[in-house]
């Protein structure tokens, strides 16, 4: 298999419904006409590659990467780790994983977030990592708080971490959210419920992983991610040199 091979067509049944009235903002932001479906081209099969040179030493450590000297973020320390694979279970090596989240009180460091919970002066809320030779990534962060949001009168987001993942092709681009095992708000959340397939929702819920918890330091959660795969046939013409 080659890095520039065509992408397997996206199975839309594993993804959220674009139009989901219980998530009100989706009503005016979902296309009403069908997508134009075509096999991928070089445009979708290639994509940006990011090297370790872009990373700073603390980029994957949200507890410290915004903290003043000697300080650290308030909250329950957690390791979040996992693997990035494609649909053939091939590890995605050297791909960029970015995360962002609210602080332990449920407040984002963002101009548009006016929630009552205070900002933590030692917590910025973003991090990034590049997967290793086995597709593994790892972050140290604090467990984000749940928070209310204006949708229904009293809707609350479950604790979650936003994930942005690059593959090797621009057509593999994915943004998703990771939830935490045992959170009773998951099954109540309209954004979670945009995904019609319960088995797919379950895949966004990271289990507690005591095999990676650090004694007297941090709990751990495991979150594996699958990106679109590529297909190859010996019977398929490929342009010279690609």
């Amino acid at each position, binding site marked *: 298999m080659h890095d520039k091979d065509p992408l397997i067509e996206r199975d839309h049944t594993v993804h959220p419904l674009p139009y989901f009235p219980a998530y009100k903002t*989706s009503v*005016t932001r979902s296309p009403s006409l069908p997508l134009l479906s075509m096999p991928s081209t070089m445009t979708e099969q290639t994509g940006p590659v990011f090297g370790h040179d872009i990373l700073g030493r603390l980029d994957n450590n949200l507890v410290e990467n915004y903290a003043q000297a000697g300080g650290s973020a308030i909250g329950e320390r957690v390791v979040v780790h996992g693997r990035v*694979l494609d649909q053939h279970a091939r590890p995605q090596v050297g791909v960029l994983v970015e995360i962002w989240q609210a602080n332990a009180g449920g407040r984002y460091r963002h101009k548009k977030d006016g929630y009552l919970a205070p900002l933590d002066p030692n917590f910025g809320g973003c991090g990034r990592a590049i997967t290793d030779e086995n597709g593994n990534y790892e972050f140290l962060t604090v467990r984000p708080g749940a928070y209310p949001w204006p949708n229904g009168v009293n809707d609350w987001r479950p604790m979650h971490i936003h994930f942005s993942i690059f593959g090797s092709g621009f057509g593999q681009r994915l943004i998703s959210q990771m939830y935490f095992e045992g959170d009773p708000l998951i099954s109540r959340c309209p954004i979670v419920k945009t995904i019609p397939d319960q088995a797919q929702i379950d895949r966004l819920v990271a289990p507690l992983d005591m095999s990676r918890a650090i004694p007297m330091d941090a709990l751990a959660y495991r979150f594996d991610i699958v990106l679109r795969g590529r297909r190859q046939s010996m019977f398929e013409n490929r342009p010279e040199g690609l």
Partner: protein
Amino acid sequence: MIMVQKLHILDETPSQTAGPFVHIGCIPTFAGVDGVFREDLGARAIESGAKGEKITIRGHVFDGTGWEMRDAMLESWQADAHGNYPGQNGADPKVNGFCRFAADAETGEFTLETVKPGSVVGPGAAMQAPHIALWIVARGINTGLQTRIYFSDEDNTDDPVLGRIEQRQRVDTLISKKVGEGEYRFDIRLQGVGETVFLDM
């Protein structure tokens, strides 16, 4: 009952909306979260010295009510002036190809500064007209939307993607309009009258 071999093809992880605070994760310096990263990812599509015509593309992302969204984030991916993608043989090392940019928080306008890409090969021996791939995420968009920017001053007649659009008036939704020397306008309509053609490729 006859069973079959099991196909071990995994399902893709489901998408979720990027939400209203995508900026702190993807372009934190832009969002005022200073000092975490040395530089925001995709800060520039090109470096100085990139070959080709320098262009600026401006536009808005409109929701289904015609409102200019203030919170959209976009990513672009393109070939260099000769139609080579970064990483391909002979690609211009000054073309990053990838850029991230956001709707302005006050006006909703986005700006992409880059070079005009060349024609790109494929599928097969066919050539695709010069284009820039776009990916749009925001609160309320549950799966990121793929589309493309073509150019009104290029020959788009044989492009295989544009050729697949049945309603010919919709082709225009993918073609940026030249509004000045090196200046183009490209508006995106998520829904309703003039709805942009979104791609599944």
